[in-house]
């Protein structure tokens, strides 16, 4: 059956370090896939390669069956694959509304017009709708620097979704968010992506969060896919427990 995203023998080496070794992944439309793995396992590298920020040393990436190797992130975004970031990538000096308006304008026209004003009623309506959907409308006119972390992550994702992507890659959506907020935040995000029928692949450290939303897990270890399957099965896998979830707890202890 058809895949929305498929990688074939994806490899990436930074000098001596291998960040990805023969990664073969096939994602079907409508799936919600979780990617787990300790730090440096190559999760973010994977996303960066798929979205064109990094060029793989070798291998192939197919989006809806067409190769997107060597394309710029903007080209890939326009094809319908959007992403969010570990650290929310926003325009700090601008208001939340302006952030979204820029996203709308960018999505609507690859060649921005020089004199027509960016802020049109139509665009504002679109942005407002998005804010409402994530219910963060009350932050509408605040400067981003004054907005709490959790909300920033939501804005980051909202901006990614404004272009109506078919697929969304979430890079640690809950990182930098306090444990209490996590579930609330993820509920919102998952509600919205479900409403928009977007295929989702998200990187996450917190196993409870992963269990709660995904239909399938990819476990990364030192650039390789250790296991791929339904959550129970993957999390039961001894090697996963040894290298991923286990080291995960250690990692968290270290971090504290």
């Amino acid at each position, binding site marked *: 059956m058809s895949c929305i995203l498929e990688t074939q023998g994806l490899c990436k080496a930074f000098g001596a370090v291998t960040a990805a070794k023969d990664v073969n992944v096939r994602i079907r439309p409508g799936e919600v896939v979780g990617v787990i793995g300790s730090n440096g396992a190559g999760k973010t590298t994977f996303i960066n390669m798929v*979205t064109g*920020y990094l060029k793989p040393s070798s291998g192939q990436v197919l989006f809806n069956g067409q190769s997107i190797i060597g394309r*710029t*992130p*903007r080209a890939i*975004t*326009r094809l319908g694959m*959007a*992403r969010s970031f570990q650290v929310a*990538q*926003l*325009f*700090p*000096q*601008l208001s939340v509304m*302006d952030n979204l*308006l*820029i*996203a709308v*304008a*960018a*999505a609507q*026209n*690859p*060649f*921005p*017009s*020089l*004199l*027509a*004003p*960016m*802020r049109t009623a139509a665009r504002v309506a679109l942005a407002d709708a998005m804010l409402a959907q994530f219910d963060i409308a009350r932050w509408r006119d605040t400067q981003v620097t004054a907005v709490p972390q959790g909300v920033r992550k939501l804005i980051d994702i909202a*901006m*990614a979704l404004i*272009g109506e992507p078919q697929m969304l890659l979430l890079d640690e959506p809950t990182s930098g968010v306090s444990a209490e907020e996590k579930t609330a935040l993820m509920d919102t995000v998952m509600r919205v992506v479900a409403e928009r029928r977007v295929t989702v692949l998200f990187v996450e450290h917190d196993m409870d969060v992963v269990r709660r939303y995904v239909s399938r897990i990819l476990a990364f270890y030192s650039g390789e896919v250790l296991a791929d399957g339904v959550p129970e099965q993957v999390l039961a896998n001894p090697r996963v427990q040894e290298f991923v979830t286990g080291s995960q707890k250690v990692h968290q202890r270290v971090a504290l």
Partner: protein
Amino acid sequence: MRLNRTELILLGVALLLAAGGLIAPQWLVFLLTMALAKSMVVQGVVMQMRAGLVTFGQGLYFCVGGYAVGMSGHFLDISDLALLLVIGVGAAVLLAMLLGLLMTRYREIFFAMLSLAFSMILYGVLVKSSALGSTDGFNVKAWSLFGWSPAQGQAPLALFIIIVGVCAVLAVLLHRYSRSSAGMMCEAIRENEVRVEYLGQSPRWVLYMNYVAAAAVSALGGGFMALSAGHIDPEMAYWITSGEFVFIALLGGTAHVAAPFIAAIVFAVVRTYAIELVPHSWQMILGFTLLAIIVFLPKGLWSLFTGQARRAKA
């Protein structure tokens, strides 16, 4: 085209200024003309500052505009002001479209240094070319406008009214540009270029358009400078000149399209009195002014109008 309040106010101020020119003493009229000519170059600097790029070579386009006007007057015997300015802007745009391909690859200090290098190369070429009077430069022929040429001694006032008109139009256009998608995209690039890329927009394309547009505006200033001063020399492309434009840009701030105009006028007045009152240490006064602005008004004189000074500092 419908004008919003800000634009109406800009045009109103311009009208007042033009009217003031009729009663103001001649030297003041001339001083304002020069200040406005410079302010156009400063607009070019500010356009790039909004995109997070500081150029130490905007003198390049200032100079190209000036020389294109002067040379078309000398070698092509063109005296029509409008035509001359169009030629000046055209020349600058062509050059910018070429250099822009390279410049848009650079950011931060490297952009600053490379822009400086290019304007210094032009400076070198002009110093070498004795046909253009080398460092002495040459005098620009008197101008006419659509067949009408101003009476003896009336040229400065006429030019003042023209430049005020041009500045008014420019102000409205730039005001719209700053609110347009492209203008906002520049700010977005300054804030976070990677994100802009991931929104499906090409930062380099936006910066390229911005660079060329800035060059055109600056060249217009250069052309007016040539016509009002009546003389041009390679000094226009020297890095100190470009530094002065950055100076004025910071003085005004990037918050509003009117800021560079006000800053240029304030600068001209401060400098001329500094030179008159303390001929031996006027640079020092400029230096302290600049430091004071940076420390107390990080967003420039304009923050006095909006009361942002404190907020910006915090």
